[in-house]
Structures are given as structure tokens and as C-alpha cells.
């Protein structure tokens, strides 16, 4: 499994990579724009990311915008039968508006409020079939 982490705080990025390193091949970036570039390139190469963790507040391009672009790129590249990437938004702001925008407009798969719990990340991966159930237990 390929995983892309977009998070502007270096320590948080490092820890997310550390948590997920046993489950996926990880790429991590510190802004939305680079995340979209990597996401697009991966699709073009035929090695798409199955799991994306997007922080909402990021420089250059925020997570909401990156999410929209990723879904657009996905729609251009893939036939309908192909499974869409599991994109999880992470934010320090537990805001109803952010959640609504991410879920209804941006079409994210799920939503995690910081502090991100390792167990929650594993639960999300299990829920969307990225890892088998027994591994998380």
C-alpha cells in the first residue's frame, strides 16, 4: 500500500510516518500543492496512493483545496470501477464547518481531529479495507 502524508508540522509528519511505516510505503510533504503533484504523478505512473492523510491548515495550498484537486485528478484518470483513494482529513480545529466542507464538498473519506491517535489511524485503515482486520487487533 502507498500512503501520502501532507502535514506542515515536521514532528507530526515524522510521527505519522513512524506510525504507518509498518503498513504502507510512505511519502510525506509539508504543503498541499506538492501533495497534489505527487498524487497526480503517482496516478500517471499507475502506482496510485491508496491512503492519503491531509492536514487542513497548510501553507501554499490548504487541505480542502488539495482534496478537491485530488478528486478531480482522480476522476480524469480513472474509470468508474476503479476504487478511489481513502483520503482522511486531519485538523487541530474541531470545527463543524471544516468537517462539513471536507465531507460534503470535498468528498473526503473520513475525518480525524488532532491529536491524531495511532489507534484511530489503524481503525480507519481497517474500516476502508486497506489493512486486514486481524492486524489491527
Amino acid at each position, binding site marked *: 500500500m502507498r500512503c501520502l502524508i501532507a502535514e*506542515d*508540522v515536521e*514532528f*507530526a509528519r515524522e*510521527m*505519522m510516518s*513512524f*506510525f504507518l511505516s*509498518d503498513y504502507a510505503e510512505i511519502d510525506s510533504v509539508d504543503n498541499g500543492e506538492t501533495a497534489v503533484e505527487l498524487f497526480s504523478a503517482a496516478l500517471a505512473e499507475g502506482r496510485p496512493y491508496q491512503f492519503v492523510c491531509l492536514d487542513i*491548515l*497548510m*501553507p*501554499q*495550498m*490548504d487541505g480542502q*483545496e488539495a482534496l478537491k484537486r485530488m478528486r478531480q485528478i482522480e476522476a480524469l484518470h480513472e474509470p468508474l470501477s476503479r476504487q478511489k483513494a481513502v483520503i482522511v482529513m486531519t485538523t*487541530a*480545529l474541531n470545527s*463543524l*464547518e471544516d468537517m462539513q466542507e471536507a465531507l460534503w464538498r470535498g468528498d473526503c473519506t473520513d475525518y480525524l481531529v*488532532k*491529536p*491524531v*491517535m*495511532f489507534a484511530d489511524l489503524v481503525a480507519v485503515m481497517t474500516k476502508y479495507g486497506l489493512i486486514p482486520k486481524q492486524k489491527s487487533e
Partner: protein
Amino acid sequence: MTLNDNKFKILTDNALVGVYVIDKNVMIQYVNNAAAAMLGYRPEELMGTTSFLTLIHPEDLSLLSNNYQQRLNGETPASHYETRALHKSGRIVNVEVFATVIEDSGERSLAGTVVDITARTEAQNKLTEQQLFLETMNRTLEQRVAEELSIGREKERLIMQQSRFAALGEMVAGIAHQWRQPLNTLGMSIQALQVAHAKGTLTTEFMERHSRKTLDELQYMSQTIDNFRYFFRTETAPVTICLDDAVRKIVDFFSSSVAHITIFVDARSHKNISGHMNELTQVLLSTLNNSRDALQQRKISEGTIRVVVTAEDKRAMIRIADNGGGISDEIIDRIFDPFFSTRDRLTGSGLGLYMTRAIVEKNMNGQIAVANSADGAEFSISIPCW
């Protein structure tokens, strides 16, 4: 000259004022045209047949008959009074009378002149009524002004109370905002230890690094509270504040809570002000928050806030400008109004800029204004300095 003198009769018959003579039996001996017409009669209808008392308003009768007797007895030779007479149609005619005693062949009679003053009396009554109405209105007005003032004071008190809650809310929100990231770091660090331990990769170096990181974050969180206490502490007496240093400190403090916005400070006024640090903090933070919100709401990719402090003579000027696109013409005049907010109800109390203006004007003896620049809004705060 006698009553029968023709010249005298022509003169009195046609006088513009009423003329009358009443004999000792209160019978009307003579009335001229004006006097008779005043009450709707012809003179011949009254003369020799009518008691003058029948022409007087019943309520004025006793007073008038007394006066009449006194004059006949020579006690009051002449008198000038107002009374109410009755018109043939029954309506009241207000009259002014000048009466005197005359003697003809040893017999006393009363003679006088009379003027219809109904119009004047009505006008006077109307005037009195209007004066009364005005007095009542004045009293009501005073009462209403007092009531409105009282309502105004109550409103002001409620707004102050709400603003205190709002300031408290902002402070809590500020701390919460600054604690989110370190809390995330702490949470991850502790979990990393657990995960590393479970994997069997927990080395001394890994342990030390995470312990250090954890302690650094805790110290940062503690510092955040100290900062808030410093900037929001209540001082009773005004103190001398070095404006440039204070503005730099407040902006530094603000900068730590905003990510992805570039903040420039140019504070070279070399001036002092007299005031309270918490008030200056509240004023600047509210204004900076407004700029931050504009930049975040409009998703400005290279958001910038410039804070410039200058001074001219005894006036310092703090300018806070952003590139957030400015404030629309429809709302620019209302942004200092209480409860006006473009933010949603959960985050914006609508009191921030209202309180800012109140503090600047009332407590700092200054002025605050806002105007649009080429790419954003600029707040200007002018305060006395030395």
C-alpha cells in the same frame, strides 16, 4: 346732555361698543344696537321689558347682583369686570364690562359699556390649554428621556458584561488555539513510545528524544498561559508603556498563534503612552484578529499583515494593514457597531471591534478608523503620547 338729547342718542345708538343703562329694579332701561346685537336681540326687545339678570349666566348671577346692589348703594362707584352673558340662542357670550353709577332726577341707575370678548376668551382658553398640553408634553418628554437614558445605561452595562465574557472567551480560545499543536505533539510522542516499545525498537536515544520533545512542549504550553496572564492582567492605575516595545511584544504574541501569515512590524515612534497593558493588548489583538480572519476566510495564499507605529508631535499612530481584500462598502460603516460580525455565531461575538473602539476612545483618549487600501483594509489608531 340727557338721554333724550338726539345727538347723544345717535352717538350711543351707533357706538361700536355696547352701551346700557339699568334702573334700580334691574330692568334694562336702555341698550344700544351693539349691546343688543351682542346677545342676538334688537334694542326694542330688551328696553323696558327685560331684567338684565335674565341675560346673565346663572353661575355668575349671585356675584353680579351683589355688585349691582353695592354700586347702587354707592359702596363701589365703578367697576371693571368680565362675566358671562346669555345669547338669545342660548350660547354663552363672554363680555367685559365697565359699569358706573349715574343719577338722573335723584334716581340712581347703572350705566356701562360692554364688549364681546368671546373670541379673546376662547383664544385665551385655547392658549391655556396648549400651555397645559406643552407642560404635560415636557413632563412626558423629560420622563421619556430619563427612561431612554436608563435603558441606554442598562444596554451599555449588558454590552460591557457580554464583552467581558467575550474577552474571556477569546482568551480561552487563544489558549486552546495555541495548545492544539503541542497537544498533538504530546499525544503523538507518547504514542510513539508505546509503538516503539511494542515493536521492540525503543532505544535510549529514541526515549531521550521524545522525553525532551515532551518537556519542550509542556514548557511552551506553560509559557502560553504566562503570556496570556501578562497581556490580560488587570492593572488598577495607568502605567507608562513604551509603545514600540509593547506593540512588538503583542504582535510577537499574536504571531505565535497564526500560521501561514507573514507579519511585518515597523515600530520606531520612540514614544511612551500612559495606559493599561491589557487594554492595549485587547485593542491590538482585536484588530489583528480581524485581519487574520479576513485572510483566512478569503483563503489569501500569501497573507500579509503590516504593523507600523509612527508619531508626530504628541500623537502616536498605529497602522495595521492587511492584504485580505478589504471591507465592502455596505459594511465598512458598521464594523464598529456592537454585535456586528461577519463571522459565524460560534466564533464571532461581534463585540471585538466595538470594544476596541470603546477602549480607544473612552480609556485611551484616542481615535480609531478603518479604510480600504489597494488590496486590503487598514486600521489606524491614534493615541496621545510623549
